[in-house]
């Protein structure tokens, strides 16, 4: 299925060099095996250069639809947030309860294993262990015990303000969002945006083009930026622009737990 999807890509996509680099992932692999197949050298470089990197077609359309359908299931979420109530935007999201659905747990563990070395190369004050279970132990001992992976649901006119997903003192500096709906077919508008502010106070907005099943890894709050006078910290926020029509679900995978 994934291979067929790749063949249907439009000319517009072929123009984008950053997005054509990856070969279609083998469909028989488990989600975790597919995460292992990603070109992590490229991801690490793109994260260091621009604060985000995309792995195309990580999930198959049917996996995306199954995850989106979880939104209405009861008993698997610990809390629901209606963004309009807090001026966070418009739309809503729900945090999963432990135990996480298998595919979410598997993706979180697999992504962490590849992102921890990147995080360690960014931050020499904190050492992130190589296994997610060990990092979660640290979070839980520090009182950050509630799971942070979430499903987000946007309808016509919904958006999400620029923010950072911080839930306590312990922060794993990278996170992942997977788009579960197909732009153009399921929704219009609803662009994933990263805004980074450099030490001079100048902000840069970047629209990250995503299609159904694509995963974007990005910095939670800061990334190191190499400048003429050494390394500076660039502050990042992310959000979603207004949907002009349709429905859009995303899966958010955050690696630290919440207070």
């Amino acid at each position, binding site marked *: 299925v994934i291979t067929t999807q790749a063949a249907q890509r439009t*000319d*517009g996509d072929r*123009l*984008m*060099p*950053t997005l054509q680099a990856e070969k279609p992932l083998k469909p028989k692999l488990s989600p975790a095996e597919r995460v292992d197949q990603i070109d992590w050298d490229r991801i690490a470089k793109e994260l260091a250069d621009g604060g985000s990197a995309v792995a195309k077609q990580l999930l198959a359309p049917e996996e995306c639809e199954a995850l989106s359908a979880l939104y209405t299931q009861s008993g698997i979420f610990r809390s629901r947030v209606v963004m309009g109530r807090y*001026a*966070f*935007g418009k739309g809503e999201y729900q945090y999963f309860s432990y135990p996480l659905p298998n595919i979410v747990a598997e993706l979180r563990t697999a992504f962490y294993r590849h992102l921890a070395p990147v995080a360690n190369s960014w931050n020499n004050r904190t050492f992130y262990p190589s296994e997610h279970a060990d990092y979660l132990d640290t979070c839980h001992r520090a009182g950050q015990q509630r799971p942070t992976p979430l499903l987000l649901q946007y309808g016509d006119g919904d*958006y999400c*303000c*620029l*923010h950072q997903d911080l839930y306590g003192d312990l922060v794993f500096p990278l996170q992942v969002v997977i788009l579960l709906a197909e732009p153009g077919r399921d929704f219009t*508008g609803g*662009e994933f*945006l990263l*805004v980074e502010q450099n030490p*001079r106070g*100048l*902000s*840069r*907005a*970047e*629209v990250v*083009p995503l299609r159904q099943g694509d995963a974007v890894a990005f910095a939670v709050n800061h990334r190191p930026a190499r400048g003429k006078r050494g390394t500076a910290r660039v502050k990042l*926020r992310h*959000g*979603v*622009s*207004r949907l*002009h029509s349709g429905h859009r679900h995303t899966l958010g995978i955050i690696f630290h737990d919440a207070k």
Partner: protein
Amino acid sequence: VKAEHIPSADAPDSEQFIARSSVSGDLDAYGAAVLPSLLSADQCHAIASSCADPTLRGTPPVADQRDLGAGIYRYFTYTMPELIAGLRSALYSHLAPIANAWNERMEFPERFPKALPQFLKMCRDAGQTLPTSMLMEYAAGEHSFLHRDFFGGLKFPLQVIVLLSQPGHDFVGGEFVLTEQRPRMQTRPEVVALNQGDAVILAVSNRPVTGTRGTYRVLSRHGFSKIREGRQRALCINFHDAAA
């Protein structure tokens, strides 16, 4: 002005034009309003090719415009090309009533006359004589920082940007992004989808928003996201001039 979608600048019904169209409502709801196909493809090509015009300045007239980011910026000087001058004058007439209503709601003192020449005289009297409208050109990998096109002193609260290239054909990426910083709230982002010849009307630096406890001012910034492939050109029309 060959731009068919703008009624003549002398038309007495400019307030009605704005009221009739969705401009006023879109500005209030989203901080931006699109005028689809304001310029024809031929007009876009003509303006884009004037990038080579030797009368355009390669350096910004004011220091505030030096931090726009990578890209080539070419500033118009007086006398402006007929098409640009006509467009600026016609747009001004339609936007002045909105600008007056905005400033009243924001409790800003400036009020704007009906026609651009009168406003430019106000600018001159305030020592602001340098035009800040410009052509922008971005190559792959380039972007502009989120910024505000105001330069102190007298300012008109709205501006217009016209996309001169066709997304998907001339370039990929380069989305037009607005952010609105609100008091004690998170910043709201907006991506405005534009085709070649479409114009977006937006706030220069502030706009009024009516909340549950009255009207507050949001702080607006705008810029182009990274061009991923190709080359993008756009025209930025500012109504106020800058101090010499």
